[in-house]
């Protein structure tokens, strides 16, 4: 009998185990590059935060703190549903897999909605560097640096979320149309890794952008 796993075996591999390991390894390497991608911005953040501590603390006080906190919780929930999605795929429960993937996407959309709303609020506040930033108060000029990094990093993160949503949609289709099964569910695992990674980034972003000035609100 031709099993689904041998159907999905690409010609360059000798056996499914090799394929699975290789693909997982590839994904982790990709995540390492993502660490470096964000890493450059984290480095920029650290440098300027050391230079302009008061301004950064003050600007951080202007974040929509509770939106950020709620969003963190939201994203953690999506990670949980994602983990359950992978779990169901491993167990070969197609319906459950689809359900959890859709749930994950839904929660992801909620996150993006809140995030967008926050960005919009900052826009109304004239806090978008390069577009409508207005200095206010003594620390104004240096706060711009904070807001640029904030928009750059949360923007890059949001972009990753969008990509993640795209990937998950494809996964849903693949489960529905049967190219994913109990024997061959590596793509779901890979997608899950990506999704969790994006979550990890957000957890750190929350800490560096929202917390330092939260008490100033």
């Amino acid at each position, binding site marked *: 009998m031709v099993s689904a796993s041998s159907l999905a075996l690409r010609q360059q591999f000798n056996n499914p185990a090799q394929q699975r390991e290789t693909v997982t390894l590839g994904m*982790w390497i990709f995540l390492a590059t993502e660490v470096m991608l964000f890493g450059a911005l984290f*480095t920029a953040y650290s440098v300027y935060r050391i230079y302009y501590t008061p301004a950064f603390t003050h600007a951080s006080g202007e974040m929509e703190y509770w939106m950020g906190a709620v969003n*963190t919780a939201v994203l*953690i929930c999506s*990670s949980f549903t994602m983990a359950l999605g992978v779990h169901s795929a491993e167990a070969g429960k197609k319906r459950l897999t689809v359900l959890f993937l859709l749930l994950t996407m839904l929660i992801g959309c909620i996150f993006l909605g809140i995030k967008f709303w926050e960005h919009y609020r900052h826009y109304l506040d004239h806090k978008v560097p390069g577009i409508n930033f207005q200095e206010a108060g003594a620390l104004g000029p240096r706060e711009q640096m904070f807001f640029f990094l904030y928009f750059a990093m949360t923007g890059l993160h949001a972009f990753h979320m969008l990509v993640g949503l795209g990937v998950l949609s494809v996964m849903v289709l693949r489960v529905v149309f049967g190219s994913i099964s109990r024997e061959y569910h590596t793509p779901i695992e890979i997608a899950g*890794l990506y999704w969790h990674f994006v979550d*990890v980034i957000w957890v750190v972003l*929350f*800490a560096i952008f929202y917390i330092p000035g939260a008490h100033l609100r």
Partner: protein
Amino acid sequence: MSEHRPTVKTYALTWGILLALTLLTSLIGLVDLGPFSLAVGVVIALIKASLIAIFFMHALYGSKLIRVVAAGGVAWFLILLGITLADYLTRNWYPFAQR
């Protein structure tokens, strides 16, 4: 698969801890800890990140190679960060009259 994987229970527990930690940071953030608020925030964030990596991403369940890759990514970021900051932190380190 021969490797064992976390159970639903583990996932749920992780999820619960993550939420609790999120609540914890959010509340600590409200207190003025001076320069430490960032430090505390980052430390909790790193704990959360590790939890996600270990239990949701199976970082410790997979092969050794994967652990090396994950650790390597972080280590390289620390190189970038550490050596860059070393410049900024020592730039004004000479006797004042010399510059």
